[in-house]
């Protein structure tokens, strides 16, 4: 009797677990089913490397969006990585453990703020600052990079904190016993030992940045063009899908799904790089 109950629970849990996996699989299958025929018909080259995006006239070149996405992501990394790594070093090495116990969960709360709120702050605060001090429209690569840089902080910080925290204390003592100052022991020994974990954190952060949509739509300006400076308004791959999906039909709709495939591939690459780096750090 009890055995039957066990079995029912076990099977139910298995079903739930597999449904998560299945939905991931279904999403992937669906995107590829909708986008792949279009990709094959247009040709990868015309789709990825043409700058001509005029869906009404049947021109689907997403090169500007790819470049914009990379710019914004790279910019977010430039903002988020140094801030996040510095914060992780500070929390691990320079403050008592009790401070860390309060600060780390607080930083992780940052990840729970809806992205529309970040976008809102970008529009109200960051964009006007850029407009009045640096010129341009304000809604720009720079603005998106700043906002996304802040958004990826929780990812970068929590993974870096774990990586630095798992460096054995004996390394620190070894370096300090040789007459290293605290900072010398950190930057010459601890960071070297934690390097792959930190790299993984930054890459996962980039994965978040390239996939972020709502905040980017609000702050990047959304004009389809190849940016020439950090003050130019741009449209990223994600923004393009979100902005046009509502009214797109036929080929246009398929082109958006194909854009999804491109994003999918980008994020897969970033995640596998991060996993490879993590694996290295475990060794």
């Amino acid at each position, binding site marked *: 009797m009890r055995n039957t109950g066990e079995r029912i629970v076990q099977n139910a849990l298995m079903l739930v677990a597999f449904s998560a996996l299945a939905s991931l699989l279904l999403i992937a299958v669906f995107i590829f089913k909708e986008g792949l025929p279009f990709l094959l018909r247009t040709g990868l080259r015309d789709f990825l490397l043409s700058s001509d995006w005029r869906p009404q006239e049947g021109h689907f070149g997403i090169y500007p969006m790819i470049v914009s996405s990379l710019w914004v992501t790279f910019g977010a990394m430039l903002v988020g990585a140094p801030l996040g790594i510095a914060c992780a070093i500070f929390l691990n090495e320079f403050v*008592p453990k009790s401070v860390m116990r309060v600060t780390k969960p607080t930083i992780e709360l940052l990840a729970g703020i809806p992205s529309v709120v970040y976008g809102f702050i970008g529009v109200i605060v960051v964009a006007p600052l850029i407009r009045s001090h640096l010129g341009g429209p304000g809604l720009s690569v720079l603005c998106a990079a700043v906002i996304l840089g802040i958004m990826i902080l929780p990812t970068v910080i929590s993974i870096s904190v774990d990586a630095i925290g798992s460096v*054995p204390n004996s390394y620190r003592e070894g370096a*300090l016993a040789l*007459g290293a100052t605290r900072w010398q022991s950190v930057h010459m020994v601890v960071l070297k030992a934690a390097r792959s974990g930190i790299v993984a954190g930054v890459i996962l952060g980039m994965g978040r940045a390239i996939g972020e949509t709502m905040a980017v739509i609000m702050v990047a300006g959304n004009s389809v063009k190849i940016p020439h400076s950090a003050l130019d308004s741009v449209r990223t791959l994600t923004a393009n899908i979100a902005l046009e999906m509502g009214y797109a039909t036929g080929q246009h709709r398929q082109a958006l799904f194909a854009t999804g495939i491109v994003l999918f591939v980008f994020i897969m690459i970033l995640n596998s790089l991060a996993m490879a780096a993590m694996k290295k750090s475990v060794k």
Partner: protein
Amino acid sequence: MSDPVQISVRNLSVYYGKQHVLRGITLDIPSRHVLGIIGPAGSGKTAFLRTLNRLNDLNPDSRMEGKILMGETEITHSDCDVVSLRKRVGMVFALPVPLPLSIYDNLAYGPRLSGIRKRFQLDEIVERSLKAAVLWEEVKDRLQTSAFRLSGGQQQRLCLARVLAMEPEVVLLDEPCSGLDPISTARIEEALMTLKATHTIVLVTNNTKQAARVADTTAFFLMGELIEVGPTSRLFVAPTDSRTNEYISGRFG
């Protein structure tokens, strides 16, 4: 005439939180001399060593009372420059801890911290300290490989060499041979015998025979107290305290 006193410890007490780990230690260590410290686990031997280079400072719960003079410097003073103290007082740990760098960079780490950058100077220091630690012959052809590739015994000699590269006045060794095979142990002891001509050495060991072989003076610690200290030749033959006698004859600990 006896050697001048290098380190004098006066009424030193150390606490880790509420735990009283060293109780009123008073002890003189002459220079160019090997002091062996023996005692069962938890007797405060390591805590004593970590006071001599102020590594206890890393533990926010630790606290000390009393005084330690090293030459003219009062190293227990709160104004003491801990970083330069640690350059004068090198330490080898119980478990070998190579830094995650190449063999060469492990050795050059300390000198580089002191601002030595010239390649030929570093080369010279690396070779000299590896020879002093009896490791040069085994690694001279692979200085650029990772220090983790070395065997445990080699890693420990690397750590000793790394300390020597700093040209310290005092070398502290915390059970340096506890994880090593007899041959590696013999190599380390060989290195120590040569070193004592130029350095003051404090050797904490779980192995009373090692103290008998290497130390000039031996101190016996028990439960944070210094029970007895005296010339090794006398202490092992005719200990004055019955507890010392019991420990060295292997009846407890």
